[in-house]
């Protein structure tokens, strides 16, 4: 059973009968993010993507923590659970592990996932329950009005860091790969097509998928990802990872390529300086995570080059499936549990 589910993240989720549309996934609740917030674009992308999966709406659940992004479930006409700060991966783990017939999506922010909930996130990733975790990274605490977050750049001036923040940020992709994640991807709120293509692969992955979504908070951290959006800079720094394709980016005289570095890791070089067969061909399915990790480091320092797409997509048995198998195995070995046998087990004696 375990093997056959690989690549079929939703094989156990019942399918809808009729055709679905975006409208089916819109709840009647008024959306209350600030006008211009990147969350709107992500919501619309998800709502218009879900019909494609063709799952029964009642078997889809969105679980979130706390933060602006975590309001997301209220706007989805599916089952939803807006929980507490940082704990969504834990709550979703209990749900998905006990209900393999559900498609469970976790919505979380950079503070929610990486600060207060960091422990749950890393354990969810290594455990590999069938979850899709969408991490809305706006590199700021939105809901609490603009403190720096664990993804803010060093020196960030905010209300809580008037002289600049001191701590080095997490790179969520590096963190996830280090935490044994099987599926790790990055996308961006403004590129719907790319976002949806990543969601498609994430949903197909059986196990925990982590999708980092760069999301603009136009109130407290506006323009954090402008370099990836402005036509002047966009193409020169964005590395679009595509499985099976040589990693090249930029155009004309700025065209560049990624190749294995002699001392280990990878490096960016001018396209004109490398032979075709020296260029690294992206292999998302490579079991060893070190190349994917090396790719995740290319944005150092500060957005020098930013890979987006699927860094890693490697199948391994999902926790929920393994857990169900143990239950089945125990039942096959000794039969279904009988309460009276259990209670009367052990040394007993009768008093008349």
């Amino acid at each position: 059973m375990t093997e056959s589910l690989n690549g079929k993240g939703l094989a156990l989720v019942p399918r809808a009968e009729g055709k679905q549309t975006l409208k089916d996934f819109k709840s009647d609740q008024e959306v209350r993010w600030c006008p211009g917030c990147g969350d709107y674009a992500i919501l619309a992308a998800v709502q218009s993507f879900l019909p494609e999966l063709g799952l029964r709406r009642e078997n889809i659940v969105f679980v979130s923590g706390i933060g602006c992004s975590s309001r997301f479930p209220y706007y989805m006409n599916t089952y939803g659970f807006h929980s507490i700060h940082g704990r969504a991966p834990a709550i979703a783990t209990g749900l998905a592990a006990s209900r393999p017939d559900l498609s469970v999506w976790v919505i979380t922010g950079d503070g929610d996932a990486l600060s207060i909930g960091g422990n749950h996130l890393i354990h969810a990733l290594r455990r590999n329950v069938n979850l899709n975790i969408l991490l809305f990274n706006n590199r700021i605490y939105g809901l609490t009005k603009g403190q720096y977050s664990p993804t803010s750049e060093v020196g960030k001036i905010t209300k809580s860091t008037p002289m600049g923040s001191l701590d080095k940020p997490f790179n969520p992709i590096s963190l996830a790969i280090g935490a044994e994640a099987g599926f790790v991807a990055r996308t961006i709120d403004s590129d719907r097509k790319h976002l949806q293509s990543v969601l498609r692969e994430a949903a197909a992955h059986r196990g925990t998928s982590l999708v980092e979504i760069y999301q603009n908070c136009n109130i407290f951290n506006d323009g954090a990802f402008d370099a990836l959006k402005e036509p002047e800079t966009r193409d020169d720094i964005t590395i679009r990872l595509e499985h099976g394709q040589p990693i090249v980016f930029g155009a004309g005289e700025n065209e560049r390529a990624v190749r294995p570095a002699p001392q280990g890791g990878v490096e960016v070089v001018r396209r004109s300086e490398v032979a075709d067969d020296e260029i690294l061909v992206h292999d998302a399915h490579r079991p060893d995570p070190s190349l994917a990790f090396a790719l995740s480091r290319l944005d150092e320092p500060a957005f020098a080059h930013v890979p987006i797409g699927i860094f890693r997509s490697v199948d391994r048995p999902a926790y929920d499936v393994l857990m169900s198998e143990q239950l089945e195995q125990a039942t096959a070995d000794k039969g279904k549990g009988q309460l009276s046998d259990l209670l009367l087990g052990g040394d007993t004696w009768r008093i008349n």
Partner: protein
Amino acid sequence: MTKQVQQLDRVIIRFAGDSGDGMQLTGDRFTAETAKFGNDLSTLPNFPAEIRAPAGTLPGVSSFQLHFADHDILTPGDAPNVLVAMNPAALKANLGDLPRGADIIANTDEFTKRNLQKVGYAANPLEDDSLAEWRLHSVPLTSLTVKALEGFEISKKDAERAKNMFALGLLSWLYHRPTEATIKFLEAKFAKKPDIAKANVAAFQAGWNYGETTESFSVSYEIKPATLAPGVYRNISGNQALAYGLIAASVQSGLPLFLGSYPITPASDILHELSKHKRFGIRTFQAEDEIAGVGAAVGAAFGGALGVTTTSGPGVALKAETVGLAVATELPLVVVDVQRAGPSTGMPTKTEQTDLLMAMFGRNGESPVPIVAPATPSDCFDAAIEAARIALKYRTPVMLLSDGYLANGSEPWRVPEVSELPDISVEFTTEPNGEDGTTFLPFKRDPETLARAWAVPGTPGLEHRIGGIEKADGTGNISYDPNNHDRMVRLRQAKIDGIDVPPLEVDDPDGDARVLVLGWGSTYGPIAAAVRRVRKEGGKVAQAHLRHLNPLPANTGDVLRSYDKVLLPEINLGQLALLLRARFLVDVISYNRVRGLPFKAEELAGVIQDVINSD
């Protein structure tokens, strides 16, 4: 030499030795033999938190006390009649509890100069007159065992290790215990090492034979089986009973059990036990921490499982925010707190009743939670079913307050027929419940119980969102409306206040007592035993025991007010007393000791007598 046989009505034995001496196993086996024989019994294991404290030292002493009788008994006993001391440390640590005239069986082989020095004995107490007031039996347990095992294909170390079985054999002879089960047990335990199995059986039998032939034991004792209510019995510890209760709750509710837990003493054994029973459809999840444990249980409950989390006080502290989430989302959840001595890490293997106020109030906002507390080890079974019943019927987290004493103590349990167990099944909502016939109102309430509608993912047409943000009653939509919040705060409280708990029963045989002793949780046994003693001496005292701490039984105030004095012993500084005074304006008299140990019946009998006399 024919030996005298003396009849006794009850005996208290304490096995004490180094942590590595196998005293818990010895005690468990003696208990099993005693249960099989049909005595009533009660046990109290007492061990250090360290797995192996330095050998031969006082902190390394581990003991197991067993009280057994030909009549029904309520506690593991105050003071041992017999102490088995495997080394000087065990003697020194336990002598203070031993009344004059009690028997001491000491392993002379371990009373070496070095071992005596380790615990500060200047002279060997077995050889000077210092133990003259006790009946000392000096037995070279180690060397006798090694001698008995000469010719066995085992190392000297393994032979020495079997000394606990020699001691068990001797005690089994002394009290006429049946031996077949122990032999079978040893054969099964060491099935993969037949030589060790044979050696242990031989040591056990040698101990028995030693009793029969040696002159240092001239008398053996008979304790007739107890006359308990008819039925099938087994011996059970509180943690095992609690785990079985949760399994029974799963069967009787028809919901799969999901346990989210993080290991902690003294609760871990519930996780261990439940993880063995996967063929009941039980999912056990060892989480990364207590917060994830309860979070996963809440997530599973959202999906329609019986969500349970098990822990001790430090874990409850971590779970507080998530329990609040279950209060706000009105999802069923059972939170088991096996209380231990605090604050902070405190004394992990010692018992206390100090989490009552945390269970009651330890969350932000007005977040009332029902509390159930078992009274005895076997009562943990029924209390677990009751906690699940309340959780499911009222869609609320429930605190189940066990403690270290109940968890590890054991007693015979009349095994119930499955047909005697309550039906605690619930119905999920499967159809729209709005007036218009098409909408679903997740917070529409049952007018009688105030429980909200519970629809689980997978139910078509009832898609809805819940969360910790305040919600409008009925629709469940986010609401910051002041009046709605006030209404919801009161509704959540009214729901808990209205839970159907049975009335408080009072035991007052003559009906004219003026003093009531009230207790809750694990103090039941010592209080009831103390009450018996007082009554035997002609004292008049009534007894009542609270199993539901929130809500309290409806007649609690009336009961309290109908006595001149209410005495409330607690292993805390008066937590229930605080609640009762606030609620009923009754000036209960607290008796508090927080030593990490259960009360002794004699101690409480004295306290009760003092209260009766203090007019």
